[in-house]
């Protein structure tokens, strides 16, 4: 795949880092995931609590609960209770919006889709882009297998595993790979991508299906493997935030290893390989 390019200055080499189907599917995924996250939080707000078990009324308190109440002075406060510990989250969780027009709601308007409380429309966005995510994901898996992108670029090699300690050090010191090594994904990068593609996203989708009363009837009882429908809802929520965590780390790495070079490679495909001597882009 790397097509060596004569460069405009000395040792600098350019190559096609990402084929167009990968670029296209990457951006579809970005769009779908953001819309799913925001519409998902809209749906969460209709019942801003998480339970563990088959139902929400098991006699045990919720794992997480977001709400609003009056404080000792009679002022409304937003509160978030996690595993029995209560936090004042006024302004963000439980009670948010501009001063004077604060509203009781789980997540604030700026992170939900639609902004206002509108469950029916949130569900429309969510289930439309859920199909987009699933179809895009299947196309991605098919492409990575057919083009051998998976085996060639993503599967860790034996030497990758041997370099794992060095890779940790490089990441902590924000050291970018040089020369030939910059043409390949490093081991931590490979593991992060593989766990998102083959663990987190499939689990997220499966837990979405586990919440469907229709799909529950496909093999009665299958949802209990994950602790029941309300546990599935909790896992769905937690995995979504793990993916947000991945996205932030991913963005951080994109910035520190040459923001424009990385962004260009995911838009036009062209990537400038770091010279052996010139360090950061």
């Amino acid at each position, binding site marked *: 795949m790397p097509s060596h390019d004569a460069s405009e200055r000395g040792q600098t080499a350019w190559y096609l880092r990402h084929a167009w189907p990968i670029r296209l599917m990457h951006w579809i995924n970005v769009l779908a995931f953001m819309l799913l996250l*925001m519409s998902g939080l809209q749906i969460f707000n209709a019942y801003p609590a998480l339970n563990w078990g088959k139902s929400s*009324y098991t006699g045990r308190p919720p794992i997480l609960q977001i709400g609003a109440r009056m404080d000792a002075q009679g002022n409304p406060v937003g509160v978030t209770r996690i595993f029995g510990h209560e936090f004042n989250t006024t302004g963000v969780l439980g009670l948010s919006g501009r001063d004077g027009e604060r509203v009781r709601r789980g997540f604030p308007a700026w992170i939900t889709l*639609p902004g206002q409380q509108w469950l029916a429309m949130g569900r429309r966005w969510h289930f*439309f882009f859920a*199909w987009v995510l699933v179809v895009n994901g299947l196309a991605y898996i098919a492409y990575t297998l057919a083009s051998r992108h998976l085996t060639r670029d993503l599967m860790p090699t034996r030497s990758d595993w041997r370099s794992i300690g060095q890779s940790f050090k490089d990441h902590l010191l924000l050291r970018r790979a040089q020369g030939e090594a910059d043409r390949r994904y490093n081991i931590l990068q490979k593991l992060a991508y593989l766990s998102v593609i083959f663990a987190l996203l499939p689990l997220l989708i499966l837990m979405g299906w586990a919440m*469907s*009363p229709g799909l529950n009837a496909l093999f*009665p009882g299958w949802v209990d493997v994950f602790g029941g429908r309300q546990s599935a809802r909790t896992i769905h929520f937690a995995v979504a935030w793990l993916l947000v965590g991945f996205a932030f780390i991913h963005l951080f790495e994109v910035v520190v290893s040459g923001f424009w070079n990385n962004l260009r490679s995911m838009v036009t495909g062209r990537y400038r390989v770091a010279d052996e001597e010139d360090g950061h882009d």
Partner: protein
Amino acid sequence: MTSQKNSRRRFLQRVLVSGGALLLSGCDQLSRSEWFAKLLGSAERLSFAAQRLLLTRKAMAQEFTEADLSPDFRSNGTSNPDNPEYQALAAGRFADYRLQVGGLVARPRTYSLDDLKALPSRTQITRHDCVEGWSAIGKWKGVQLSRVLEQVEPHASARYVVFHCADPMDVSGERYYESIDLEDAWHAQTLLAYELNDVPLPIKNGAPVRVRVERQLGYKMAKYIMRIELVDRLDHIAGGEGGYWEDRGYEWYAGI
């Protein structure tokens, strides 16, 4: 070269910034436009088709044990219909209640509560999943809707079963209604339930009779059912979408 590079960067910068702005403000405008809401709604038909492909009429919703019962089966939506006729029926402990079954059927008829109880019953412990996200587990006893359908004999042209309810939803007096197709109507777990957790169905949960459609969400399971109508289309009833919440943007097929 440098200026070309800078202009490219400025372009990308603009794409990113305007993309973000489009996401935040544009989505809300899109939500309010009819064509876009319709486009998003097309996924509903896809989900419906996919689930119907996967689920046969025999596919049963999970049933639970007494140990799983929720301590209190919460009420949602109407908890006591603001309707004088209904209140009069309730005052008489529903002795004068008559469920009318008609529309596209060969033998329309009415059922008293005792008539319904005289038919063979089914008891099931199932999970009620609200569209809001919570679930509660309850033990339901009632007559299978299929038993009633066998007696009234739907015409071949009938495609939907509509449930007309006693509860007014707002000041206009519009009453709750719901509809399911015959695939769900004939399903073994689709009940006209008159008992919850071994006692007569409480008013807050839909007395005297509510429907159970276990493979769909809670809002499909209409409470306070007064009349059942078999129809060939839904567009001439109320808002035309097949249910009170459907007329307000919720999916008609609530299997997800």
